[in-house]
C-alpha cells in the first residue's frame, strides 16, 4: 500500500520550568491511502502531541518540534514554516482534524454555517453563496437533519453528537485526504460513539480517505482500525495489524492494556487486571525501559541493566515491539 503519511523519527519537546518534557521521542509511523490506523495509549503518553506535530500546531512556546520528517504525499511538511502558505493549505484541506471536545471545539459565538463555509471558502476560493450551499450539502452528508436550518444554528443549540458531526462535515467538506480524529468519541455516549465512528468509516470507504484514530479506548479501535500503534511515554512500543496485536501482544504494556478492559468474547470469571502505577514523568525519563517500574514481566538482571529497548520485528505482517524480553531473552535462550 502506498504511504500517504510517513512520519519518521519525530521528536517534539516542551521546554517548561521543570525541564525538557520529551512528549514525542523518536516516533515513526505511517498511514496508507484508505487505511484506518489507531494510536493507542494512556493520557499524557504523547499521542495527541504526535498528531499536533504532524500539522505543526504544537503550542510554541513552550513546545518545539526538534527533529524528524513528516512526509505527506511525498513532501516533508516539516520543511515548511508553521505559518507558511503551504501549511495553511494543508490544514483543513488535505489533513483535517477532529478533536475530543465537541462542546468546546466549535466557536460559541459563530453559527455552524459561518464556521463551515469559512473553511470551504478558504480552501476552494468559492464565493460566499456557493460555499454556504456546499456547507448545506456537507451537513446533509453527515446525516444532520434539516441542514438549511442547522447552518444558522449556534453550537450551543446542538447536542454533543451533532457537534461532532459538524466537525466531521468540516473535514468532509474539503475532501481531506487524511482525517486525524483525536479522541473523537470520548465525550459522547455509547450509541452516539458508534454513530460517529460509522460516519468516519463511511468516509474512508466512500472516498478513500485515510483515518488516524487517537484514543485510549482499545475497544473502540479493535472494531475499526486496520493497524494499531501503541504509545508509551513518548515512544511507540508496539505496532502491528489489529488482529496480531489483539491475539499475540508482544509488549507487556499492550498485554496489560488488553487484560484491563472487559471483552465480550472472554471466558467467564476472567478477572480484569489493571496496570499498576502511573505513567512516568516525561521530564525525568530513566535511561532504562520506561515501562520497567510497572512491568509484570520485567526480568531482573536484564531489564534493569539495559538501555531503553528499540522496536524490533516481533512477528509477521510488520509486527514490531520494543521490549528486551523479545530481543535479549530469545537470543539467550
Amino acid at each position, binding site marked *: 500500500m502506498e504511504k500517504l503519511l510517513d512520519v519518521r523519527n519525530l521528536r517534539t519537546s516542551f521546554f517548561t520550568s521543570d525541564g525538557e518534557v520529551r512528549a514525542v521521542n523518536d516516533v515513526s509511523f505511517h498511514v496508507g491511502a484508505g487505511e484506518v490506523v489507531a494510536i493507542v495509549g494512556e493520557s499524557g503518553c504523547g499521542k495527541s502531541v504526535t498528531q499536533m506535530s504532524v*500539522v505543526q*500546531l504544537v503550542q510554541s512556546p513552550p513546545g518545539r518540534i526538534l527533529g524528524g520528517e513528516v512526509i505527506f504525499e511525498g513532501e516533508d511538511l516539516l520543511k515548511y514554516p508553521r*505559518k507558511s502558505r503551504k*501549511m*495553511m*493549505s*494543508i*490544514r*483543513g*484541506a488535505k489533513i*483535517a*482534524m477532529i*478533536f475530543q*471536545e465537541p462542546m*468546546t*471545539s*466549535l*466557536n*460559541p*459565538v*459563530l*453559527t455552524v454555517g459561518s*464556521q463551515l463555509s*469559512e*473553511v470551504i471558502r*478558504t*480552501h476552494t476560493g468559492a464565493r460566499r453563496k456557493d460555499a454556504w450551499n456546499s456547507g448545506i450539502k456537507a451537513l446533509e452528508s453527515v446525516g444532520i437533519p434539516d441542514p438549511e436550518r442547522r447552518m444558522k444554528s*449556534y453550537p*450551543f*443549540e446542538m447536542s454533543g453528537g451533532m457537534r461532532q458531526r459538524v*466537525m466531521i462535515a*468540516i473535514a468532509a467538506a474539503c475532501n481531506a485526504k487524511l482525517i486525524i480524529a483525536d479522541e473523537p468519541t470520548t465525550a459522547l455516549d455509547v450509541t452516539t460513539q458508534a454513530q460517529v465512528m460509522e460516519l468516519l468509516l463511511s468516509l474512508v470507504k466512500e472516498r478513500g480517505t485515510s483515518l488516524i484514530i487517537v484514543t485510549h479506548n482499545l475497544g473502540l479501535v479493535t472494531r475499526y482500525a486496520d493497524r494499531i500503534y501503541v504509545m508509551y511515554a513518548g515512544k511507540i512500543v508496539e505496532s502491528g495489524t489489529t488482529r496480531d496485536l489483539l491475539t499475540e501482544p508482544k509488549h507487556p504494556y499492550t498485554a496489560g492494556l488488553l487484560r484491563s478492559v472487559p471483552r465480550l468474547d472472554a471466558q467467564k470469571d476472567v478477572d480484569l487486571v489493571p496496570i499498576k502505577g502511573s505513567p512516568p514523568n516525561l521530564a525525568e525519563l530513566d535511561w532504562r525501559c520506561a515501562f520497567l517500574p510497572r512491568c509484570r514481566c520485567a526480568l531482573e538482571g536484564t531489564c534493569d541493566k539495559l538501555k531503553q529497548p528499540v522496536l524490533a520485528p516481533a512477528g509477521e505482517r510488520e509486527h514490531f515491539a520494543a521490549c528486551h524480553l523479545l530481543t535479549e531473552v530469545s537470543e539467550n535462550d
Partner: protein
Amino acid sequence: MFGYFLKRILVSLLTLILVSIFAFSIIHLLPGDPVKLALGEAATEEKIAQTKEEFGLDKPQAVQYINWVRNILKGDFGRSILTRERITDLLKTRLPITLSLSIPALFIGVLTGVFAGVVSAVKRGTLLDNSLAFFANFCLGVPQFWIAIMGVYVLSRELHLIPLQGYVSPSESFSGFVSHAIWPVICISLSAFAVLARQTRSNVLEVIQQDYVRTARANGIAERSVITKHTLKNALIPVVTLIGMQMRVLVGGSIIVESVFNISGLGNLLVRGINSRDYFIVEACVLVISIVTVLANFMVDIAYGFLDPRIRKSWR
C-alpha cells in the same frame, strides 16, 4: 426579548431613584449652609429665612426631595442658590462641552486600548508587548492632572503647538476646537486606554488558548481571521462591560481635566457646586452623571446580545 428590555428598563429606573435619594441626602449632610455663603456674613436672620423659604429649604427634607423630583420631571432643575441662574440652562450649555471632550476621548481610548491589547497579545513577550504594558501601567499609575500639566508645559509653553487652556466650541471654529481640545481629550482617554489595553490583552490570551481557536487553526483559517473573527468576538465580551464603566468615568471623570484646562464643562460646574454647597447644582450634576451611567449599562446589556448569541437567544 421585550420582557428582557422591560426588566432592564425597570432596574435602570430603580437605580436612578436610589441614586437621586442618595445624592440628595449626602449633600444635605455636608457641613456649611449655602444660603449663608450666598448672602455673606452680614446677612440678617430675617433675610436668611426669607431666602430659605424662596428655595423651599425650610420644608422637611422629604418634602424637599419630592418637590425637587416633581420639578425635574417638568424639566426644571431649579436655580442656583448662589447666583440664581437656572440650572436647566447651565446644564444645557455645559453638558455639550463635556460631551464634546468625553465622546471623542471615549472613542480614542476604546479603539487604541483594544487595538493595543490585541497587538500585545498577538506579539506576547516581545519588546512591543512589554513597551505597551509599561505605557499602560504608566497611564494608570501617574495622576491624570500631572500628565495634563506636563503636556501643557511641553506642548504649549515649550513647543507652542497648542493653546495653554480654554475651550472653543466646534460650531464656532472647528480648528480652534481641535487645537484646544486635543490634549484634554488625550488626557481623558488615557485611563480608558490603559484599562482596556490590559483587559483586552489578557482576554485575547485566554481565548487564543481555547479549543475552538485551535480548531480554526487546524482548519487552515488565515491568521487574520483567527484573531479578528474567531478570537476577538469572544474576547471582547468582557471588554464591553469595561467600556460601559469607562463611560461613567468619562462624564464624571473629566472633572480634573476641566479644572486643569479651565474648561467650563459639567465637571467644573460640579466642583463649583460642591465648594459653595449649592445643593441643586450638585444634585443636578450627580443625577446627570448617573443617568449617563445607567444608560451606558443599558447599552452594554444590549451590546452583549449582539456579541454573544447565547445571551441573545435567551431574551426570547
